[in-house]
């Protein structure tokens, strides 16, 4: 993803929900790392499934995309895909820029 992929536009009426949303994404990242370390692919699949569902709703299409990769990687047991996705997700969360409109 290029730099533009770190830009997110969130509907104005969801603005007050975003701090909690972002806090939960960071906890989600920790949960992904723990599940991968434990090779808990079912947990990874569930986490990916949830990311896929919630991301787009808030305007975070990237979160949904990462969720799809996690879900696919968990289903196929593709550790490399999971590891790279978690790295990219970490980077995205550290660089994401949110605008409200």
């Amino acid at each position, binding site marked *: 993803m290029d730099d533009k992929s770190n830009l997110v536009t969130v509907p104005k*009426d*969801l603005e*007050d*929900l975003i701090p*909690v*949303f972002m*806090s*939960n994404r960071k*906890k*989600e990242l*920790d*949960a992904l790392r723990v599940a991968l370390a434990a090779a808990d692919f079912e947990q990874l699949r*569930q*986490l990916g*499934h*949830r990311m*896929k*569902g*919630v*991301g*787009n*709703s*808030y305007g975070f299409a990237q979160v*949904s995309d990462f969720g799809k990769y996690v879900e696919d990687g968990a289903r196929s047991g593709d550790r490399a895909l999971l590891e790279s996705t978690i790295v990219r997700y970490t980077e995205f969360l550290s660089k994401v820029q949110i605008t409200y409109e």
Partner: protein
Amino acid sequence: MSEVVPEARLAAGQAIDFRVLVVDDDPDMAAYLARLLENEGLAAETVHNGDAAIVSVMSTPPDLILLDVMMPGTDGFEICERLKAETATAMIPIVLVTALEDQQSRVRGIKAGADDFITKPVHREELIARVKTLKRLHATRREMESRRLAAEVQRKDALRRTFSRYLSPRIADRIISDMDDEGTPFRRGAQRVSVVALFADLRGFTRLTESTRVDEVVGLLNEHFSVITDAAYRHDGTIFSMAGDSLLVGFNVPFPQPDAAARAWHTAQDMLRSFTPVHARWTKSGGAPTGLGIGIAAGESILGNIGSPHYMSYTIIGDAVNTASRLVQAAKPGEILVSGSVYETIRAMIPSGAAKSQGEVALRGKSGTTPVWSITV
């Protein structure tokens, strides 16, 4: 992972005429859905697992449920099946919110009773359109249900008014409460019950009918029955039949009355007392029956719906009724004849010297003898 749960935003003092329960194990997803609903002026409550959803629905039934399918523990399909299987919650519309796009999952959702589906990611316009449609349907259904209930109340009131002209109000209520949705009464089968039966009969009535004009006979009978039925109702007796000049009143039926014999005794006294001024007036206007006789007996009887599909009588039959009938036929004007078992129950209430044993009496149509007591008050 232990997420932070976003707070729902409910406007203070907001009129709640449509409440939505959002069930999603992802608090962010639940908060998002709740926010979209609140933006439309709807009240939304969020819960994050199946058990909490069931508890919430049972304690405060919502008007609509948005239900996530994939949840740890009890999943959305199972919650949906359980709620649709309960009469109290079956009518609450359920929209399954799912990322599952395959046809198989939709079929499973339909089988579980879901009313609609929304696929994640949820598009706000689609969500609002679907919720508004279900809200309209809900309002229409509620309106129709309240009209149906109002019509049902009116119908039962009309039936009660009609029945009450012919039956004891308690029997009328029993019949109406027993009716099924198609208005078929007497659904319950016959029951064997312990009964105290009281017969009251106008002694000398046959002679009266021979010497009095028909319209006058009807007037006298109506007055007689008014007085004695009122007395029966005052003591919660149930009137089962009115034939000729004779009235059959049952106690302990159709509802239990532990003091049934005492009620019958008080009814008998009340009937005689109430009939006295009527009798005096009849006597004064010339030519009168000789008075009221009463028979009371207790025992097993059958309570039920007896007759044909075209003509039915909700009544009691059996030994207590037969014995009371024989006793009233033997009673003199102003006399109460009671069977031995009734006497034993009420003897403490009878004024001293008012009761006299008639010994063991062979009543017509009965194989053995019956201890009979005569009471005059």
